[in-house]
């Protein structure tokens, strides 16, 4: 395992220490329980927006704490849901009296831990609403399974809901907006290589020199199928078509197109993929009114990409464009 780390068990802590040192103007990092909170703490009368999940997806979620996006994030161990005590502490730290929204990616562990945290925070007198994000079309959506995973839409929803909260939306309204965006978003990802969880020390899965995994999860969970590697344009087709068909997005829809690197795929390839993704979107009559291209929800050093489409409305465009100032996403400020 080749990584710039010291002790595999200290990766998250030491990384957070560096993160705190790099961005003291934006965030504070608390340890035991561990959470990241905006440097200026709870905002009087503003809904707090909190997310969290396993580490290893940086900049998500820690990198989206600051102004105009998340108020706090709870990092777990690498690819492991954080725990209720972290979430409870983070929730209480950003409760400005208007309640707190939990944005939870749909993984059994995350959902259960956030559930317990919400109960604890409610017991402590904080209004909590939770919205579970499940945009990954690679997974069959069925009440007989854990359902679809939360992936790329999380970044978009954190931005849009963070802006809504900054704009003075009430808790129920921010929560409803998050749920509506989730309803209107779809994603799918693929991997060219595995990632290696530091504490495991070995690649999570084996992919042959000529293979790729279509429908990969952001923790290296296997996807729909394993295929021979193919030209980028074919790969983008394999991702875009199911995403568009699933909702289904239709002719004339305004969309945000998010082309994401899983970590190891460099920008030169990502823009090349974006070129094709736009083509596919336009061939379906979609208007790409906003875009995001880069490594925003990653899986350590995994090579691969994902695409996310989110239907845009005037309100969502306004909130997307609103100023954001976080370590991982910044504009207008």
């Amino acid at each position, binding site marked *: 395992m080749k990584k710039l780390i010291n002790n595999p068990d200290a990766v998250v802590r030491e990384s957070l220490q560096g993160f705190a040192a790099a961005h003291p103007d934006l965030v504070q990092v608390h340890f035991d329980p561990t959470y990241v909170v905006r440097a200026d703490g709870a905002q009087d009368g503003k809904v707090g927006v909190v997310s969290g999940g396993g580490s290893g997806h940086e900049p998500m979620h820690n990198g989206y704490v600051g102004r105009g996006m998340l108020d706090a994030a709870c990092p777990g161990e690498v690819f492991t*849901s954080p*725990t209720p005590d972290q979430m409870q502490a983070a929730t209480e730290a950003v409760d400005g009296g208007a309640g707190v929204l939990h944005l939870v990616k749909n993984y059994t562990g995350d959902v259960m831990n956030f559930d*317990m945290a919400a109960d604890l925070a409610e017991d402590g007198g904080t209004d909590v609403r939770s919205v579970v994000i499940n945009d990954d079309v690679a997974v069959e959506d069925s009440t007989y*399974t854990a359902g679809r995973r939360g992936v790329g839409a999380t970044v978009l929803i954190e931005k849009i809901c963070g802006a809504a909260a900054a704009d003075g939306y009430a808790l129920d309204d921010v929560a409803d907006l998050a749920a509506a965006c989730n309803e209107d978003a779809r994603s799918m990802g693929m991997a060219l290589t595995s990632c290696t969880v530091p504490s495991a020390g070995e690649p999570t899965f084996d992919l042959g020199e000529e293979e790729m995994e279509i429908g990969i999860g952001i923790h290296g969970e296997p996807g729909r199928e394993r295929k021979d590697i193919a030209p980028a344009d074919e790969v983008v087709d394999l991702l875009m078509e199911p995403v568009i068909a699933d909702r289904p997005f239709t002719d004339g829809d305004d969309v945000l197109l998010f082309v994401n690197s899983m970590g190891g795929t460099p920008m030169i390839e990502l823009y090349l993929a974006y070129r094709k993704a736009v083509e596919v979107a336009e061939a379906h009559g979609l208007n790409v009114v906003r875009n995001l291209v880069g490594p925003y929800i990653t899986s350590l050093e995994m090579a691969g990409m994902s695409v996310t489409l989110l239907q845009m409305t005037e309100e969502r465009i306004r909130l997307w464009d609103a100023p954001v100032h976080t370590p991982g996403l910044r504009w207008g400020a």
Partner: protein
Amino acid sequence: MISTEDIRRWIRSYADRIAEQKAYLTKLDSPIGDGDHGQNMNRGMQAAVAALEDAATPAATLQAVAMGLISKTGGASGPLYGTFFLEAAKQAPADAIDGADWAAMMRAGLDGVQRRGNAQPGDKTMVDALTPGVEALEQAAQDSPSPALPDILQAAADATREGMEATVPMVARKGRASYLGERSKGHQDPGATSSYYLFQAAADSLTSA
């Protein structure tokens, strides 16, 4: 009869087993999960062991274990095992625990797991190991009002092992493995495996009780 000290021994024995099998549990969690079950359980059980000393009763001990697990395990197994011990604690008698008490405690724990995680037997989760284990305890308690603990604990452990093994051909319907659908077949569930260790640790460490 099982004392507070016995429970501590059980937890320590379980923590040792988890530490020893950490890599194996993680290996089980790789093809059908995300390769962290061993680390998760080990982190949680270290915290549980660290919390043991402060508690004076079986209930308080189990409660401390639950809090340690909930605050350190993370993932799906943290809330599930945490709830297991929390609910078991609520059923623990104030003093010594007999076989029937034990059966009731484990049932309460299992019920908690099912309430929290919504899994049924056959879904390829820890429930598939815990269910036959608890049923074996209940059967023994029913057969004789005060059964010999060593025997019934080993019988329960054997039942969890069989339950664990039975997860191999199952198609997962809960947890991370459910994303794989049919591809989850042919792999043993990691959580069922750690549940078997839990019951086996009871048989190993409480036999002197």
